[in-house]
């Protein structure tokens, strides 16, 4: 099938990656899905094939180590798959005071958010150039713009993604590859994040979107070759405010979003419930 082209999505098993996979499949794009081992990726691939009748390949790789990225590249080369869209979605979030965080976690976070995006883009750039017009979508964050406390490393990695994408777009301008960066606010990516997002302050809550609402905006923006894609009216508004407000107001804004989070009682209960709870009868 020499004419078959694929959309490669990393971090496809959950959250935004999964929503992007559904969105692309619904537009009849063939998929190459990548996620961590044991993330039910093969079931997801079957499910998408069955619902949308598109071709789907699935690879379970840990991209936080560069060898995972190279493995992925070699396997796709071996199968002679032609890619026309690359979506660097895999990433790790996290909200933690810097000195309380674990350096091993930071290493993994930087490895996945920064290194994997860089290496994968480099490895696949030739493949993409074979089939113009080709597209790259990197997933940044609103944290690329706002300097939020407790998001030092995360925000740093996303600022890298922002700069990397915009710079690369200029380089590849006349080579048939468009580069876009998606900068969403909070996304209800999985159950625990959804729960956490229920208890954040008002302004942060306004910025939060569901993956299935972000995905179509992201793919539309990508195909229209938009440089920066900001999903959601509130996020657009916050960004405009942030650009025009004086520094003192910005400080207030970002501090407000990080206000101490009070979990509702039912939520705390859910977190504390697990099996380890002593059974009075046992």
């Amino acid at each position, binding site marked *: 099938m020499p004419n078959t082209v694929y959309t490669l999505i990393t971090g496809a098993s959950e959250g935004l990656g*999964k*929503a992007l996979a*559904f969105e692309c499949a*619904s537009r009849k794009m063939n998929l190459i899905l990548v996620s961590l081992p044991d993330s*039910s990726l093969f*079931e*997801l691939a079957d*499910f998408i094939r*069955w*619902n*949308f009748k598109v071709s789907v390949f699935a690879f379970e790789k840990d991209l936080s180590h560069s060898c995972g990225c190279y493995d992925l590249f070699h396997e796709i080369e071996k199968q002679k798959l032609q890619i026309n869209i690359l979506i660097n979605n895999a990433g790790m979030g996290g909200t933690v005071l810097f000195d309380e965080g674990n350096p091993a976690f930071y290493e993994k976070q930087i490895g996945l958010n920064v290194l994997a995006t860089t290496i994968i883009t480099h490895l696949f750039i030739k493949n993409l150039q074979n089939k113009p017009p080709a597209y790259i979508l990197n997933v940044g964050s609103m944290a690329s713009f706002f300097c939020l406390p407790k998001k030092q490393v995360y925000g740093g990695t996303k600022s890298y993604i922002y700069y990397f994408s915009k710079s690369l777009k200029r380089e590849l301008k006349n080579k048939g590859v468009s580069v876009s960066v998606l900068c969403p606010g909070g996304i*209800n*990516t999985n*159950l625990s994040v*959804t*729960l956490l997002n229920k208890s954040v302050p008002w302004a942060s809550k306004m910025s939060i979107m*569901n*993956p*299935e*609402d972000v995905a179509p905006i992201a793919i539309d923006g990508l195909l229209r070759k938009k440089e920066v894609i900001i999903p959601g009216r509130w996020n657009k508004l916050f960004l405009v405010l942030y650009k025009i407000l004086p520094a003192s107001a910005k400080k207030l804004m970002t501090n407000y979003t990080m206000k101490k989070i009070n979990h*509702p*009682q*039912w*939520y705390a*209960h*859910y977190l504390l*419930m*697990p*099996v380890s709870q002593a*059974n*009075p*009868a046992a």
Partner: protein
Amino acid sequence: MKILVTGSSGYIGNLLAHKLADAGHCVHALIRNRKMASSLNHDNIRIFFGDINNRDEVKDAIKGCKQVFHVAGQVKPWIKDPSIMYRVNVEGTSNVLEEALNAGVDKLVFTSTCGVIGPSLNEPMSEKHPRIIGYTLDYELSKKMAEDIVEQYIARGMNIVIVSPSKVYGPGSISHSLTYNAIISRFLRTGIALILYPGHYQGCFGYLDDVVNGHILAMEKGIPGEKYILGGVNISYYNFFQQIKEIYGKGKIIQVPKFIIRGWAYWQWLLNKLFDKEPLFTPAAINHFYRNYIFSSEKAISDLGYQITPFDEAINKTIQFLKPSDHA
């Protein structure tokens, strides 16, 4: 055998309690609302007034029971204080499970919902399929959290079967304002059904009698730790009302465009903010209307012997049950 049914005053719980009582079991019916006691008039039904959020009251009701159907749940499209929904559906479930464990119950059937599996794409969803969207509705999220708690108790060795009913309609002693009965009833009364445009979105409609039988089958034959969808017919909303119209002989189906639905939702939101009026649906819930919610009951059919009453027959019985009486 003594069997506890929580939520016996509800739509599913009530018919379940009666069927079990008719079969000769001694049913412990746990209900909160004293006014609902009359719906449980049966020699084999013993009523326990209590709340699943009160462990002592659950403990009293469960005493001596070998089996438990945990049907009770807070089902509402909108709730002023969402924490109530979590308290009932999540904490209430953990209370019932903990007391069932303490009481040494043999087997428990937990009533969840297809809403946890969530909307479908082009093909019907089964128990194992991945969820395609996030959890936006408090009801779905709270039932998902309850299922997670159930999984923890299964891991502790309890015999628990999860059943997931779809939308439910059909004759029942309780006419709940949220079931499709209310919507069918309004159609029969007013002659007008407002459905979304386009009306091709499909839902899964389970017949109450089938769903209740499915509960009993799950207790008899369900494999602990497994989940069974108790659904019915997958049909578009347009065809659903078209069938009713054909059988009943009259009625008009009006398809409403999305911007009106959206405006209506914001209108309700405004009324809610100003006058505390309970909305039928919220702006956030609208996107859920524009999705298919179709499910496959194959697993329950093959493993439990679950039966789906043919749609014609089921809807006919429902119409006979709901149609406005001539002298009214």
